[in-house]
Structure formats: structure tokens, C-alpha cells
């Protein structure tokens, strides 16, 4: 007896380069019965030929930060309906082109927010209390030789200015409140339901803060938002923590201020030209560096995989 099968063509989702999450979690990261993954990175063909070779056109793309979704790429995908990033940031996606072509853009939502907030707090405590530097001191066998380590600075009652009070910024705020910090924020709009002091101007907030934590999006308005004037306002004891995007901070100016003692210290997870980090920072003990992994805990990535399943 013959059985006829109705084969349904599942929507095709393109992955140009393997995202970090997939390297770790394997194909199960985005396995779904609702769509089929098309892995361009497994083919020796250049992308245009690879796409031309496909039996069915691609209607969605998973876009990690290192694969910019440019107008050129979008042009190769005439049936594209959806861009899904593996990041919270969408600054690597040509939003204007997407809007023109009526392509939806979805991000990782708040899958990462807790981890990024945790790292921001971890970096802040590390800088104030010199944790990484003191760990180096002990592991280099210097404690018996040099005696006591230089004192750090108390976190309690410090004034913390959060730049951008979205999902990540809010989580940073609630964590730091528990340490007795005084929270203020700067954002595109005032948030009436939050108890923190609002500043329209980041420089003014810097003048009234002991530390700034950068948690905002990178847009043309926030490019080099943290500049020479902000550093001057923050002052010699002030600390910067950046878990957002490198380009929000004028990196050359930051390096100069740190080397010359114009600001007190920095905790940085992101840089203007990753993975390149200004070598001058390596000589400094009041700087803690992280290779853009604020968001990468195993649990966070598993949560991201769930979000993808839902978004499609």
C-alpha cells in the first residue's frame, strides 16, 4: 500500500558565520521543527554562489555581531523577511535598509541582561577593590615579599551614574542599591516610575558621580558620548565601566586620561576595534579588561536559544 506524504517546505534561516553560542551548544542551539537552518559557513562557495545554489530562498537570517547585515548582504536575499541578532545591540544591522525593504529586526531581548548586569557590577567592585590586581599580586608570590597590598576604595554610599536605563541599566541599578550606592541615571527619556535621580546631561551626571556605568545602545547620538568633557567632570577618583559598545567611549581620550591619572580607573568589556585593545592599558593596575564576554555564560546562551525558538 502506498502512502503519500505531504512535504512541507520549512522557511529557510541563513547563518553566514557560526555564532559563538552554536560553537558551544552545537546545532541544538537553534534546532526547531518550524524552520530549517542553512549554514553558509559549511560551504566552500562564496556567499552569492552558495545562495544561488539553494533550492529555496532564505527568508530569515541569524546575525551575530561579527556579521554586519549591510545593504549589500540584504540585496543578496530578495526574500528576506526577518533579521534576528544574537546580541542585544543592533548597531551592526542597516536598519534604514531593513525598514525600506519591510524586513523585521529582532534582537536577543533581555536574554543577556542579567549576565551583563552581573559583569558590570563585578567590574565595578574589581576596580574599586583592586580584585584582579591583588589576585595577580598573590599569584606572583609577592605577598610575603611586599607585605600589605595598597588599600582600595569603599563601594558603599558611592554615587553611581548609569548611562541608559534599559533592561541592563535597571538590573545594574537594583544590584548596586543593595550595596548602599546612590543611583542616578541618564537616558533618552525620564522614567517616571523609577526612584533614581534623572540627568538630561551625561556631563552633569558625571560631575555628580563617583562612577559611570555605560549601559546604553550605540547610535549616532551616543557615538563618543563619553568624551574629554565627561572625563574631566568625572574627575581623578572617578571610575568608568563599559559593558555596552566600545564606540560610545572616546577610547583614545580614555587611554590618555587613565595614563595621566585624570580619572581613577576603568572596567572595560568592550572596545572600539575588538579584539584590539590599546596596549597602554596593559601597564595599568587600575584597569580591568574583559574580552567582550559580559553576556556569555552558559545559562545565558541557553536562554537565547529559547528566545529564537519563540521569535520565529
Amino acid at each position: 500500500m502506498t502512502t503519500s506524504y505531504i512535504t512541507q517546505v520549512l522557511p529557510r534561516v541563513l547563518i553566514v558565520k557560526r555564532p559563538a553560542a552554536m560553537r558551544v551548544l552545537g546545532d541544538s542551539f537553534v534546532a526547531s521543527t518550524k524552520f530549517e537552518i542553512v549554514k553558509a559557513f559549511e560551504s566552500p562557495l562564496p556567499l552569492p554562489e552558495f545562495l544561488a545554489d539553494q533550492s529555496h530562498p532564505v527568508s530569515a537570517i541569524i546575525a551575530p555581531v561579527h556579521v554586519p547585515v549591510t545593504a549589500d548582504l540584504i540585496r543578496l536575499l530578495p526574500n528576506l523577511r526577518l533579521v534576528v541578532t544574537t546580541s542585544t545591540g543592533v548597531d551592526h544591522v542597516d536598519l534604514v535598509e531593513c525598514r525600506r525593504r519591510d524586513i523585521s529586526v529582532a534582537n536577543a531581548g533581555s536574554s543577556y541582561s542579567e549576565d551583563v548586569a552581573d559583569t558590570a557590577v563585578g567590574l565595578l567592585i574589581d576596580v574599586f577593590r583592586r580584585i584582579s590586581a591583588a589576585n595577580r599580586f598573590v599569584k606572583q608570590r609577592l605577598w610575603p615579599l611586599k607585605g600589605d597590598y595598597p588599600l582600595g576604595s569603599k563601594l558603599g554610599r558611592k554615587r553611581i551614574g548609569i548611562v541608559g536605563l534599559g533592561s541592563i541599566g535597571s538590573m545594574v541599578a537594583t544590584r548596586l542599591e543593595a550595596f548602599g550606592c546612590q543611583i542616578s541615571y541618564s537616558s533618552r527619556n525620564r522614567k517616571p516610575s523609577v526612584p533614581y535621580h534623572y540627568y538630561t546631561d551625561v556631563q552633569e551626571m558625571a560631575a555628580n558621580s563617583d562612577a559611570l556605568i555605560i549601559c546604553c545602545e550605540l547610535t549616532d547620538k551616543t557615538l563618543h558620548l563619553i568624551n574629554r568633557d565627561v572625563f574631566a567632570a568625572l574627575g581623578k577618583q572617578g571610575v568608568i565601566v563599559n559593558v555596552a559598545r566600545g564606540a560610545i567611549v572616546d577610547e583614545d581620550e580614555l587611554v590618555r586620561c587613565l595614563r595621566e591619572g585624570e580619572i581613577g580607573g576603568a572596567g572595560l568589556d568592550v572596545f572600539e576595534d575588538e579584539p584590539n585593545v590599546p596596549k597602554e592599558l596593559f601597564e595599568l593596575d587600575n584597569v580591568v579588561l574583559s574580552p567582550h564576554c559580559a553576556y556569555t555564560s552558559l545559562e545565558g546562551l541557553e536562554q537565547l536559544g529559547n528566545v529564537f525558538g519563540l521569535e520565529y
Partner: protein
Amino acid sequence: MESIGVLMMCPMNSYLENELEKRFNLLRFWTSPEKSVLLETHRNSIRAVVGNAFVGADAQLINDLPKLEIVSSFSVGLDKIDLGVCKDKGIHVTNTPDVLTEDVADLAIGLILALLRRLCECDRYVRSGKWKQGDFKLTTKFSGKSVGIIGLGRIGTAIAKRAEAFSCPINYYSRTVKPDVAYKYYPTVVDLAKNSDILVVACPLSDETRHIVNRQVMDALGPKGVLINIGRGPHVDEQELVKALTEGRLGGAALDVFEKEPHVPEELFGLENVVLLPHVGSGTVETRNAMADLVVGNLEAHFSGKSLLTPVV
């Protein structure tokens, strides 16, 4: 008061030294090559001893100082002071509670984050240039993990309050249940370790709590669990800890204190799942100044016949 001899046991804080020198005849125990001679020469003028977490006042020292009236510790921990002998001889003892609670609790959370998220290793990774070759590996999330606290005193409570802001369920072990506390109580440290992802030592050191974290506790914590010690080195069986870490039976450790400071077991230096600090729990400018003010304040109160600020005995 300039004739009152105050014996300071080791270098601990230059602000404290200066303030003591202004008011008393300060004798620095560590600068004397022949300590017994120092004690003999000044035995009738030394009326106070200032100690800290490293060196305090043991029975021998107390017996060598017949005019000793007060021991003022530049620490909250009293394990280096023979309290029994002090009580017997009517010698007052003061410490520095409350002013350092926040700093120690802040450090405990900082250590948890540094350990779980590998912040120190990440920093090393970037400085070594390895990031150009590839991303750092995945780390472990802190938010939401269960935190088990040994000792729910001032410091333990402050740690719990901070961990709650990270949505961590809080468990604790204490000599007795604390009735007004919403955290889950475990009657033994092994049970606490079995049911917690992160175990934090925050109790005072006494004969009962020496090696309170032993092999059994470490095995209960397991290869996914981590230990944070901001108490005293002898709380943890250090030899067993080294074995548990090198054999992979314990997930990781972040330690601010050790059994024989400043010596740290060699085997720990190469482990990336270990964070080591040189006893800096209260090590901020602000807190050490506040602690110094308490030491000086207690001595001044005592020698002017006023009530002690923070008496223990």
C-alpha cells in the same frame, strides 16, 4: 596621657600610628630586634596593646605585661586574643565591628563574580594578547544561583542582602535558627553545602569553627560548587582544599584568608578556578580610617574613665 605606654604589635595603618603617637607613648613591637628586652624595659608602662587579625595578645604576652588594662583590636575578629585570660585578669577588650561590615560583604560578592565569571582570568586573557586568537570560553552565571552562608551575623546578613539583589535564594547555617529571617536554615554545614551552589564562610573563628569546612563539606559542595572564604584561614582545612581543587572534586574557590598568612599553598597559583587575595576584606581607605578612629576612641574612653565604644570583654 603621653606617658601611657601603648604597644602596637605589627604595622597595620600609618594613620592609626600617627593618631596613637599624638596621644600616647607608642611602642612598635616589630621594630625591636630583641622583643623580650622591649617588654622587660617597658613592662611597667605598657597599659594597652593594639593588635589586629595577624597578631593579637596571647596568654604569654598578657602575662608579660602586669600593667595591661586594655587590648584594642584593629579588627572585628578576636581569634588572636586570649579572651579567657583577659576575662580572668579584668583586662578590657575592644574590636571594630560594624564599620567594616559593608566592605567585607562587598568583597564577598566581588569574589563570587570574579570567580564565576572568571574576571581575573579574562583580564589576563586580554593582557596576554590571546583575544586576537579567539574568544574566551563560557563562564558560569551568578544571578539566581543559591548562596549558602555559614554564620548569619552582621557580615553574613549583609552578604545575604546583596546576593538577594541578584535573585539568589539564600540558605544559611548558624548555631541556632534565627527566628525573624526568611532564609532557609540547614542544621549542618554538610547539608548547607549539599543544597547550595556557592558556600560562603562568614562566622567568627573559635575552637568550634576551626576546619568547619572540611573534606566532607567540600565533597558535598562538589565539582560544580564553589567556596568563598572571607572569614579566617583556619575555618577551612587548607590541605584538603588544595587536594579537592587539584583533583577537580571542588568547582572553585575564592579566598581572602589563609591558615598561615602571608603564605599561600603553591598549588593554588596555577589554577584558573581560584581567586586569591591578600586579606583585604576591610582594606579600603575609608574603612581602615573608621577602624583606626574606633581603636583610638576606645583607648581614649578607657583612659579618661568613660564608657568603651565597642567593648567585647
